């Protein structure tokens, strides 16, 4: 269980998160939706402990991660896989070294086992046999899949996805959605997906939460969100150019 309560974050004088409250049940898939730049990725970085909140708490399995010492935080981190928006693959390493990075650094297991786990993870994302390629040789969609394989390789209990379908063609986007859903069903992991792609959100989410002006303003199942009466959520999910969100920006 992940419990985020009252998280506030100021980045370079910009109040990005203004009291985020969100509960994510174990084994569920929560999709956080919101406009670009509204702080979704910042929230993900808080969950994995890269950023620390100015106020508020992030509790994972009963531990407030902001209060953990480096060693304990690292133990928590090894249970979380974060799939970055652009993949964030290490471009000086091969695909295989990228995927096995977590195990090479901390796994304390033999080289053969690492190679097996790397191949198994690449297989899960449908990219078997590319371990010797360099990230530069991959397309955008392949990079995202390799990033997912890298997250899977450490056998995480929680997987965080940062805009998994952004910047890829609709067919690749759909296959990534399918992959996220099948991995979730197969591995029973807790997933948090940050996206502004509503098609993707409806397809993969058990629970949708909308982040707006640094707060979660609405939360519910995909059906509940689709039937919402909230004008802000309504404008966002229907992709309307006119409404309270754009009005607020214009007034600023």
């Amino acid at each position, binding site marked *: 269980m992940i419990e985020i309560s009252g998280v506030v974050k100021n980045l370079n004088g910009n109040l990005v998160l203004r009291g985020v409250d969100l509960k994510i049940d174990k084994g569920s898939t929560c999709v956080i939706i919101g406009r670009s730049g509204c702080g979704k990725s910042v929230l993900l970085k808080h969950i994995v402990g890269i950023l620390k909140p100015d106020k508020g708490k992030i509790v994972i399995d009963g531990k407030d991660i902001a209060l953990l010492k480096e060693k304990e*935080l690292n133990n928590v981190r090894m249970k979380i896989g974060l799939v970055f928006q*652009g993949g964030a693959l290490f471009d000086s390493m091969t695909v295989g070294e990228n995927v096995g990075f977590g195990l090479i*650094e*901390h796994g304390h297991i033999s080289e053969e086992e690492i190679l097996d786990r790397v191949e198994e993870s690449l297989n899960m994302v449908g990219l078997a046999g590319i371990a010797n390629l360099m990230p530069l040789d991959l397309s955008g969609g392949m990079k995202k899949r390799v990033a997912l394989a890298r997250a899977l390789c450490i056998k995480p209990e929680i997987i965080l996805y940062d805009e998994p379908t952004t910047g890829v063609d609709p067919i690749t986007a759909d296959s990534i959605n399918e992959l996220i859903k099948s991995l979730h069903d197969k591995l029973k992991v807790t997933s948090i997906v940050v996206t502004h792609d509503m098609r993707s959100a409806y397809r993969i989410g058990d629970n949708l939460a909308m982040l707006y002006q640094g707060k979660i303003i609405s939360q519910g199942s995909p059906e509940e969100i689709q039937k919402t009466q909230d004008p802000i959520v309504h404008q966002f999910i229907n992709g309307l150019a006119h409404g309270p969100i754009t009005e607020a920006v214009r007034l600023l």
Partner: protein
Amino acid sequence: MFDNFFIIIGRHIISFFYFLGGLSNLAFKTISLSFVPPYRKDRIFEQAKKAGLDSLPLVSLIGLFIGFIFALQTAYFMQRIGSELYIASLVALSIVRELGPVITALVVAGRVGASITAELGSMQVTEQIDALETFATNPVKYLVVPRFIALSLMLPILTLYADAIGILGSYLICVFRLGISSSIYLRVTSEALFHKDLFNGLFKTIFFGMIIALVSCYEGFNVKGGAEGVGQATTRSVVFSFIMIIIADCIFTALFYFIFP
């Protein structure tokens, strides 16, 4: 108009202290993490090769030309007072005590420091440094420590090499152009140099190596924006490294002059 002037000056002063604070913090973390296992020798060797072995051609070229130039410039004055023999001792002392260390450090700051900032900067922009953290890997331990150790070890070795090449350049000019006998040149050179001159020249380069590693990594970690940010950080890294090397050189020269005259 004056308001703006003071605002600009104020901003520069604040950003200077911000830089100094950040650099000191990175230096503290790097030095303390250098003693924490695991010690990644493979990464240190990889960086030592990049910083040392790969810099040899450039250091050779610059060292040789500095030797040529310095011998000719010294000869211009020494011939006027009829003391050509002292060219050897003057060149040897200047190269070993000052020119060799500083020129090598500046070359390494321009070649290796700039590449470290560009590499770490693009890693920052593409979230690779955040990715390291998600795999419970401390970016300072993984990226800065090997570069810090490699540069602090390689700079004295490169300097020793540059000193030898510089003296060789001067030897070539003196022996083949100015007609000084080879044996006399070598004897005067060896008589002019004491152990303390060599120590004086090499000791400070350990710190020059540390400065280059810390400044270039700090600037790389603090890149903001995209490709433009990487370019600006690389420029800043080279400029700040140059300034700090010259200041450190001045401090060491004064220290050695007054403490070990």
